[in-house]
C-alpha cells in the first residue's frame, strides 16, 4: 500500500510536467495574435506592439517561452499574466470560491444521485423512476447557457429565493443556486449510473443469498447492493469534481463569480498563455489527487481489489 502511494506520487510529478507542456503547446498553437486579442477591436500602434511583444517574450520560439515559464515555476513563481497581474495573486483570488462552489455542488449531486438512483433502481419502471427519467431528460436537453439564466430569472428575481449574483466571498446560501445549476450538469449521468448499477446488483446471486438468509430488505439494499454499486458512481464523482471546477465557465459568468472557470475562459480568449497554464497545472493536480483517492476508495468498497 505504502509503495503504491509512493509510486502514484512519483507518477504525479511526471504527469504534472507533461500536462504543463501539453497545455503550453496548445496555447502556443492557438496563438494567432495575443496582443490584438488583448486589445479587442482597437487598432494597435507599431511601437506598442513592439513593446508588448518584448515584455512578454512573445517573439521567442515555443521552447524558449516554455523554458522561461518553467524556470519561474520551479522557483515557485507562476509569472505575470498579459494583463500585468501576478498569476499567483489571481489564483489565490479565484481558487477558494470555485472550490467551495464545486464541493457544494458535488455533495448535492452525490446525495440526489445516490438516493434517487437507488430508489429508481429498486422500483424500475415505477412512477418515481419515470418521473426522474423525465426530469433528467429536461435538464439534459437544456444546455447550461439556457438553464443558468433561467434559474437566475426564476429563483433569483421572480421568486426572490436566492440572491441573483454571488461574489468572491460568497457564503453557502449565496452559492446554493449556482451550485444547483452547476450540479444539474452532471447529476443526470450519476443518477442513471447508480440506477443501472443497483438494478444490476439486485439481480446478482449474493442478493438472492442474502435474502434467502432472511436479511431485511433494508439491510440487503443498504449494505450489500449499495456498496457494490458505488464503484462506478464514485469514479464519476471523482471525474465530475474536477469537471465542475474547470467547467463552471457559464455558471460563474451568469452568477458573477470570479472563479477558476471564468478566469480560464477569459485567459483562453485573450490567448494569455502563462495564465492558462498556471490554472490548468493546479487543475491537473486536483484531478490527480482526486483520482488517487477514488482508486483507494475502490479497495475500501471492494476488499477483493488490492494494490501493491
Amino acid at each position, binding site marked *: 500500500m505504502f509503495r503504491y502511494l509512493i509510486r502514484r506520487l512519483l507518477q504525479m510529478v511526471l504527469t504534472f510536467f507533461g500536462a504543463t507542456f501539453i497545455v503550453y503547446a496548445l496555447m502556443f498553437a492557438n496563438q494567432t495574435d495575443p496582443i490584438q486579442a488583448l486589445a479587442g477591436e482597437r487598432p494597435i500602434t507599431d511601437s506598442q506592439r513592439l513593446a508588448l511583444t518584448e515584455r512578454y517574450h512573445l517573439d521567442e520560439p515555443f521552447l524558449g517561452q516554455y523554458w522561461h515559464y518553467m524556470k519561474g515555476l520551479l522557483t515557485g513563481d507562476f509569472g505575470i499574466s498579459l494583463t500585468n497581474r501576478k498569476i499567483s495573486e489571481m489564483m489565490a483570488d479565484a481558487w477558494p470560491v470555485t472550490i467551495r462552489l464545486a464541493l457544494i455542488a458535488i455533495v448535492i449531486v452525490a446525495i440526489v444521485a445516490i438516493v434517487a438512483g437507488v430508489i429508481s433502481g429498486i422500483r424500475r419502471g415505477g412512477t418515481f423512476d419515470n418521473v426522474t427519467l423525465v426530469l433528467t431528460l429536461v435538464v*439534459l436537453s437544456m444546455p447550461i447557457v439556457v438553464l443558468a439564466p433561467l434559474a437566475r430569472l426564476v429563483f433569483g428575481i421572480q421568486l426572490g429565493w436566492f440572491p441573483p449574483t454571488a461574489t468572491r466571498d460568497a457564503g453557502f446560501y449565496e452559492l446554493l443556486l449556482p451550485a444547483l445549476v452547476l450540479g444539474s450538469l452532471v447529476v443526470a449521468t450519476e443518477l442513471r449510473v447508480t440506477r443501472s448499477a443497483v438494478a*444490476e446488483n439486485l439481480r446478482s446471486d449474493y442478493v438472492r443469498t442474502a435474502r434467502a438468509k432472511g436479511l431485511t430488505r433494508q439491510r440487503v439494499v443498504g449494505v450489500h447492493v449499495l456498496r457494490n454499486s458505488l464503484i462506478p458512481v464514485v469514479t464519476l464523482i471523482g471525474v465530475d469534481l474536477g469537471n465542475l471546477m474547470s467547467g463552471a465557465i457559464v455558471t460563474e459568468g451568469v452568477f458573477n463569480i470570479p472563479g477558476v472557470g471564468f478566469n480560464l475562459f477569459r485567459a483562453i480568449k485573450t490567448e494569455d498563455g502563462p495564465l492558462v497554464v498556471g490554472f490548468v497545472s493546479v487543475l491537473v493536480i486536483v484531478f490527480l489527487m482526486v483520482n488517487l483517492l477514488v482508486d483507494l476508495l475502490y479497495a475500501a468498497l471492494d476488499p477483493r481489489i488490492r494494490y501493491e
Partner: protein
Amino acid sequence: MSDPQAVTTAESAVGRDKPRSLAGDAWRDLRRNKIFWVAAVLVTVFVVMAIVPAVFGAGDPRDCALSRQHDGPSGNAFFGYDFQGCDVYAKAVYGARNSILVGLLSTLLAGTIGLIMGLTAGYFGGWVDAVLSRGIDVVLGLPFLLAAIVLARRLSSDPSNNGFWAVIVTLGFLGWTTAARVMRSSVIASKNQDYVAAARMLGSGPARLMMKHILPNSTAAFIVVLTILLGTNIATEATLTFLGVGLKGDAISWGIMINEAGPNVRTAAEPLVWPSVFLALTVLAFIMLGDAVRDAFDPKLR
C-alpha cells in the same frame, strides 16, 4: 458469485445458429417488450428525419423574414416562427441531420476510445494502467474549451470544409475520458470475480478473458454514460458553433436553435421548447433502447 451463464452472453453477439441461441432468446424477449418498440419507432423516425427530411412536409428552413418574428403556429408552420422569422418546425426537422449525426458519431468515437483505454488499463493494471490513467488525467485536466478551439481550428482550417467532421472528431477526442474511467473501474471490479479466476485457470488468454468474460459484465455503467454523452454532445456542438469553431455558415441544428432561442424565452417559448423536445426524445429513445437490449441479453433476468 460465480456466474457461468454470463460467459455465454458475449457469444450471443456473434449470432450462432444454434437451435436456441442467446440472441434468439433475446430477440424473442425484445419482440414482446413494449418499451423496445416505442424506442425503435422513435429512433426510426429520427433517423428517417436525418436522412430524408423532405418527407416530413416541412417548408424551407432557410426562408426567414423578420416581418414574421415570433408569429404563432399556422398551417404552414406548425410550431410558429422564431426570432429571425424562420419556420421552427422546418428548422427542427432539417436540424435533425446535423444533430443526430454529430451526436451519434462523436459518441461512437468517444465510446470506442474509452472502451479500449478503460479495458486495457483496468485489465492489465501495473504500468499499463499507470501510463493510460495518467494520460486520462491529463486529458481530463485540459480545459475543454481550449482543447476544442485548438482542435477544431486545426481540423477545419480549410475554408471549403463545413466543420462537420471537425466537430465530431473534437467531441469524440475530448469526450472519452469519463467513459474510460468508468470502464476501468468496472473492469477492476469484475476482474477479481470468481468466474474470471475460474476461466483464467481453465487457460483462457487475456484477449478471450477480456472480450468474453470481463467486458460483458462491465458494460452497465459504460452504456449509461454513453447514452447521456449522446445528449450532451448534441448540445455541445452548439457551443462550439457559437464560439465560431463548430459548424460553418448557416448550418442548422437543434443545439443552435436552443441556444438562439434561450435569450428570448420570456417573449417566445416555442422556439426553445420544440428543439428541446426533439433532443430529449432522441436521448430518451436511445436510453430506452439501451435498457431494453441490455435487459434482453441479461440471463439473470430470466
